[in-house]
């Protein structure tokens, strides 16, 4: 179950990565491609530093996870007039401070860019095929989705 990378056209770029990535460098590359866009909304999710968590592991299931992310991106592109959408998600072991997920949406109007980025994040959080566990004090513990994540998701129904 190692990750694979997939790039569609210039509009949609969805990647599952099993090693560290640099969100700012990804945003820079994405901006360079979408210079015609008026704006780029993005979200970087990272492992919180300063908690007692030592390591975080993100598990995925290859037959479902990347196809599900691709479908999510396609859905967002149908809902808003976007010039580009980037979704990058980590799998494997992560340390405090490491980026987990990056979503960036380029659009002519900022409202569309913000909405698409939030939509993608809400669905990645509670509808995508990832399972997360944390190690703290030497003990691994599986994480269940928060009630808030389901509430966030219902906004788009």
């Amino acid at each position: 179950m190692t990750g694979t990378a997939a790039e569609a056209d210039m509009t949609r770029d969805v990647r599952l990565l099993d090693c560290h990535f640099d969100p700012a460098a990804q945003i820079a590359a994405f901006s360079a491609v979408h210079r015609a866009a008026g704006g780029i909304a993005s979200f970087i999710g990272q492992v919180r530093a300063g908690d007692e968590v030592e390591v975080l592991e993100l598990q995925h299931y290859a037959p479902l996870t990347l196809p599900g992310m691709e479908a999510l991106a396609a859905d967002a592109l149908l809902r808003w007039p976007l010039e580009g959408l980037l979704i990058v998600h980590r799998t494997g072991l992560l340390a405090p401070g490491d980026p987990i997920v990056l979503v960036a949406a380029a659009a002519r109007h900022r409202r569309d860019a913000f909405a698409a980025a939030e939509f993608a994040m809400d669905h990645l959080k509670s509808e995508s095929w990832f399972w997360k566990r944390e190690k703290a004090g030497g003990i691994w513990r599986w994480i269940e989705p928060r009630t808030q994540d389901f509430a966030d998701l219902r906004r788009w129904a």
Partner: protein
Amino acid sequence: MAIRLVFLGRLEDAAGAVERLVTVTGSLAAIMAALDPDLVEVLSGERIKLALNGTMVSDRSGLVLEDGDELAFLPPVSGG
């Protein structure tokens, strides 16, 4: 003659492994009968979803598993 069972997330702990090969085919009930009853109870939880060869299973009672199939047990996700 085997099918591959995949246990995601916390189900890995219950099963003791991420994957397991069982030399049984046929209905879901037949597969379950080959597993430890404690594990079967966990796998039968209402929040556990199933995927057969990468496609979500909507009708469990109609499942027929054949040689080479992969059946995944999916607990609630926690991504991002």
